């Protein structure tokens, strides 16, 4: 259930790879892979806007990561985020201590369509950098998942270890070749892609565009999770508009809101030229 609530910080620590893990105590249900929350510091109006972060993992009452069961939607007593410090909002977030409170709005967005609903029990997940986030829960839903993780270097790549308990094969590529295949994650995808693949992707826009193009030319379905600067997170400010190809535009026109109609889109509907 979407709600605006206060949650207590359980932990907020830097992981091996530099990204931070933020655990919050929050009774939540209806959680799906690809959902996100808008987070803010209470009692501060600068920065003004809340910041969107994707749901990473679900916690139990003790603040431990829930052993994954193949059930969706998920529910738990806490949630975990994984985030990079890139600017003012995330810096402020990184200063929060256990016991501090945050305000958060969510779960928001459509989340990824479930493989089961798309008539399959397997999928190829492609994550670039923080694009790993939606795939922990997704991998937990699959009998036979494949996660292709594009990292910058060895530090980043260490995040893939989070997936070790999941019924999911993980392949890593790094730009510097220090771990896994050297090069871009799309090279890994090229090896695995077949016309009946179901591809999920999250990461930098250029990666998503490439994945969408590869899937399309292989005749495979692909769903991508997009990012846009957001103000409201609930479809009312119209700030996070993304352009839809004319042939896929509905009665409401060629724009869709990433926060409320996304962040996950069937990649064939996106006007990629408008994105990058």
């Amino acid at each position, binding site marked *: *259930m*979407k*709600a*605006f609530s206060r949650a207590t910080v359980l932990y907020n620590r830097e992981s091996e790879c530099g990204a931070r893990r933020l655990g919050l105590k929050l009774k939540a249900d209806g959680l799906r892979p690809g959902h996100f929350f808008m987070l*803010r510091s209470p009692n501060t*109006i*600068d*920065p*003004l*806007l*809340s910041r969107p972060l994707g749901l990473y993992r679900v916690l139990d009452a003790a603040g431990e990561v829930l052993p994954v069961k193949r059930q969706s939607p998920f529910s738990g007593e806490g949630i975990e985020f994984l985030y990079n410090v890139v600017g003012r909002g995330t810096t402020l977030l990184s200063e929060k201590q256990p016991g501090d409170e945050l*305000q958060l*709005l969510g779960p928001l967005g459509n989340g990824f369509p479930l493989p089961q609903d798309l008539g399959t029990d397997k999928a190829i997940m492609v994550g670039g950098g923080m694009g790993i986030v939606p795939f922990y829960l997704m991998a937990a839903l699959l009998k036979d998942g494949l996660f292709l993780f594009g990292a910058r270097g060895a530090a980043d790549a260490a995040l893939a270890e989070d997936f070790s308990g999941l019924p999911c094969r993980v392949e890593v590529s790094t730009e510097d070749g220090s771990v896994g295949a050297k090069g871009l994650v799309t090279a890994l995808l090229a090896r695995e892609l077949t016309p009946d693949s179901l591809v999920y992707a999250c990461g930098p826009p250029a990666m998503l565009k490439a994945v969408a193009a590869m899937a399309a030319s292989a005749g495979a379905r692909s769903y991508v999770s997009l990012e*846009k*600067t*957001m*103000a*409201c*997170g*609930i*479809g*009312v*400010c*119209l*700030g*996070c*508009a*993304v352009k839809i190809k004319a042939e896929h535009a509905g*009665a*409401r*026109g*060629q*724009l869709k809101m990433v926060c*409320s109609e996304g962040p996950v889109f069937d990649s064939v509907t996106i006007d990629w030229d*408008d994105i990058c």
Partner: protein
Amino acid sequence: MSEKNLHIKENKIDSSVSLGGLNLKNPVMTASGTFGYGLEFTPFMDLASLGAIIVKGLSLKPRCGNPAPRIAETPCGMLNAIGLQNIGVDAFISDKLPLLADIDTHVIANIFGETVEQYCEVARRLEDCETVKAVEINISCPNVKRGGIVFGVDPVEAAKVVSTVKKSVKRLHVMTKLSPNVTDIKVMVRAVEEAGTDSISLINTLSGMAVDVEKRSPRLGTVTGGLSGPAIRPVALKMLWEAAGVAAVPLIGVGGITTTRDALEFIIAGAAAVQVGTASFMDPSASQSVAHGIDDYLKRHSMTLSELRGSLSTP
């Protein structure tokens, strides 16, 4: 301006207010463009706690708005260049309005056009919709017939829009929303008042801009946009206070109202009602909190809303 603020004992507060015929259960509305069509907020608050909701600006035809990026954060504020994207008045009437028929608060439609005729036509189509109690005329729009100069910065053009809309409707209350981007807000107040507006809301966004210095490009797709949020509150409040010095019709204060205290500043300076805008992005229940907070203040100070209004003691 008829009043209906009864201060009832036993901790029951009557914070209702009449804006020249438009009776609100309390003085708190939501600002156009920051509250969608209202229903988006039902998971987070009770719409019935509000005096009115003002929906996203409506034009005659659907508009798809401006290119991205459309929002940029600034110190205690935000810039937007949404470009008045909206589904058009007809889709609003057929798709959205039925869903709003049963909510227990007034619905006010914010309207705009590129010509005086378009404004009137939108208003006329809403005239027959019982659910809509008032139109708020957004005059901060370029007048395509006058080389794109904004209606709201020219008292003659602004008055023309208002008087023509006013003549096109009978049932609807007509509220006019002023632009702050003028030398003297009093001139605009007098102009729209003489043109027959039933009430005046102010302010719309301030013109502003931001630059990405690494890319050396504007942070909005349209280069400039509208500044809203707490940052503009002192400017809005000053204009409201100046307007209160000359206006006979009720005034509705808008601009940076985030907390009860902010709303009270406007009421004390002379506002009959207020609108909560950007704050709804920070906290979707902000408008409800403000409405409750005003009641609490009145209780604590044993005052009626009309006693509070304009109670500023100046030196």
